[in-house]
């Protein structure tokens, strides 16, 4: 399953810079110019890596410190007190383990929201790509327009509507809006235009296969790299979703991690302030660990996809 490589052909196709698609012939990993590996060049890119990693390293290091140690020690090195596991324990048990509850909520939103969004985007994008009907361009314009209207500004109208439907302060207020991924729709659309040959569909229709059967037996397989990528993006989007839950939920038992962490951070202010910066930092770390692990897991798929491509050569 090659994911990223294929997907980005979509970007290519979207721009329409090159006419009909060739069967992608892969070049060997080293380009025909066969340049040598350059240590200097690698070191130069190392600066990039440092830039990307410093904040994450900072997060890891500081999750080992006590609240007091957080401020009194150098930011990029360890303090004398190493309380990493204590911090994790405190994070997980603070307020009767509300963090775990938030974690579960986030998983729920990701599974239902991102899963549903991917499904809907696939069906709709495929439909737009493969069925001619009037007003397709209009649908495209509307979808692009919808991305352009700032979501923060739509929050109030959405909140008032949802509130009338009795959905606010329930998980549905988070899940239903995340079901729509205009970007996902867009990706699948341009991807389907290229990767599912219309002739193949017509042949299937001639054989008397229904549209649904055609879709599930033929198209979905051809689309799978695109689908996985959309899934990746929607998972990240729902995992990181912050603003919508902030508006829609007043009861912390339904918060996702992002809103919960920000509430912990805000706890440091005012008359009855109870700062818990060490837990905010440890909680942040625990929040990004699963998604980073998921990324690293997917990394294998990209790599196998890439090398498979070169072997085919």
């Amino acid at each position, binding site marked *: 399953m090659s994911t990223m490589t294929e997907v980005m052909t979509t970007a290519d196709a979207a721009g329409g810079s090159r006419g009909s698609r060739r069967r992608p012939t892969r070049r060997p990993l080293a380009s025909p110019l066969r340049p040598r590996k350059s240590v200097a060049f690698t070191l130069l890119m190392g600066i990039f890596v440092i830039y990307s990693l410093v904040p994450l390293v900072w997060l890891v290091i500081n999750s080992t410190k006590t609240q007091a140690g957080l401020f009194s020690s150098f930011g990029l090195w360890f303090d004398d007190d190493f309380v990493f596991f204590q911090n994790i324990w405190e994070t997980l048990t603070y307020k009767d383990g509300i963090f775990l509850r938030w974690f579960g909520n986030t998983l729920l939103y990701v599974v239902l929201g991102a899963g549903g969004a991917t499904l809907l985007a696939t069906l709709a994008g495929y439909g737009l790509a493969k069925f001619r009907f009037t007003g397709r361009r209009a649908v495209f314009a509307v979808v692009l327009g919808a991305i352009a209207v700032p979501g923060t500004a739509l929050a109030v109208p959405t909140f008032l509507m949802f509130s009338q439907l009795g959905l606010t*302060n329930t998980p549905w207020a988070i899940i239903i809006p995340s079901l729509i991924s205009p970007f996902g729709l867009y990706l699948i659309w341009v991807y389907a235009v290229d990767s599912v040959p219309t002739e193949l569909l017509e042949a299937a229709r001639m054989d008397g296969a229904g549209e649904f059967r055609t879709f599930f037996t033929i198209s979905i397989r051809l689309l799978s790299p695109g689908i996985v990528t959309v899934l990746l993006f929607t998972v990240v989007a729902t995992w990181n979703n912050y603003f919508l839950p902030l*508006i829609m939920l007043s009861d*912390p038992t339904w918060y996702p991690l992002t809103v919960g962490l920000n509430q912990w951070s805000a706890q440091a202010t005012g*008359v*009855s*302030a109870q700062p818990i910066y060490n837990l905010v930092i440890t909680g942040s770390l625990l929040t990004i660990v699963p998604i980073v692990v998921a990324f690293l897991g997917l990394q294998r798929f990209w790599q196998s996809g890439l090398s498979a491509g070169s072997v085919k050569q």
Partner: protein
Amino acid sequence: MSNARSAVRRTLSVVAAAALIGTLAACSSGDDGGSAGSGSASDLDAALEKGGELTYWSWTPSAEAQVAAFEEAYPNVDVELVNAGTNTEEYTKLQNAIKAGSGAPDVVQIEYYAIPQFALSESLVDLSAYGLGDLEDQFSASTWGAVNVDGKLVGLPQDSGPMALFYNASVFDQYGIAVPTTWDEYVQAAKDLNAADPTKFITADTGDAGFTTSMIWQAGGRPFGIDGTDITVDLADEGTQKWTGVWNELVEGKLLSTTPGWTDEWYQGLGDGSIATLVTGAWMPGVLESSVPDAAGDWRVAPMPTYDGTPVTAENGGGGQSVTTQSENPALAAAFLRWLNSDPASIEVFLASGGFPATTADLENPDFVNLESEYFGGQKINEVLTQASKDVSTGWSYLPYQVYANSIFGDTVGQSYANNADLNDGLAAWQDQLVQYGNDQGFTVGE
């Protein structure tokens, strides 16, 4: 109360209700916008007996234990405690729920400065209908004044924040600085300290609406006048100028730490002596104890400095709880509220969490007054703080849109702080925006 006034109020409530229905167009608006309360203390007892369910929004540390104690005392009542966010976050959610016509809790924690805003939109129940007006003599005058808006009792006070001077005695000793009793001495101390060690500042203030309004309050300024929907905003009155006269010396002289309040760096500054004093509410000891443990023994409390030596102070922060008009069981909600803020069992929990009371009985209780605080090096800090609660200057009021006003403080007065420029210019800009906003919202605003 004149007939004209009450006629205005009646119109107002009709208008407010109409506004609600208007916006929600096709949607039904959960309640009729007014409180249908009619009852008495015995009704409250009956409601407690009968029981039911309540939702209570609060972010205070004592809430959980208080709810538990209440449920034990009244097993028929089930209170669901929700932390809907800290201060302004909660107000945003409350405002949204009011706008939507549903979703507000039965009982909600609101700070004093925000109470008029919610009272105006008829979102809070007039508790005098349940006989809670009789509790007046249980509370300090300034807090009782803060929960009475336009002749209605819209909440009960929970805590109070009479201001005092908190100072780091070890820093003062180290540089031989005497504890200032007047603002002139305070400015002098600021100069001496910063001259002796440029990394140390007398205090941190990057512009905080609550602090500024309290300082104006102490100086005798009364910038906000409210009479129904007629409002005056005068941020250049005598008292205000008295304050800016002093504070400009600190702002323009760059004698203030630029660390924003309540940030991690701020807590650190309080711990390491780089922020040497805080002029703030009497609830501060609890925060210092729990969040700046390293500085235990360093801090002391003194009366707030004055302009002319006459003891006078103001309230800073603090708040209480109210019953919303969306509550389906306002009698039970009012009964819970009465227990929460006047029952000794509840107050005991509140005090144990480090809160500073609004109830006169506790403010005068020798056990409380003479308590020696270990954190403050054995000082009887409540002697100073309870005296401060008696010296609060009277006659202050907040705007009926103070939450908004405070939200744009940084845009206006904050610019004076950021540029080390004359505070009067920033205050003038704030005033302009407040006048314009008030007029836009249909108030009649004079200057």
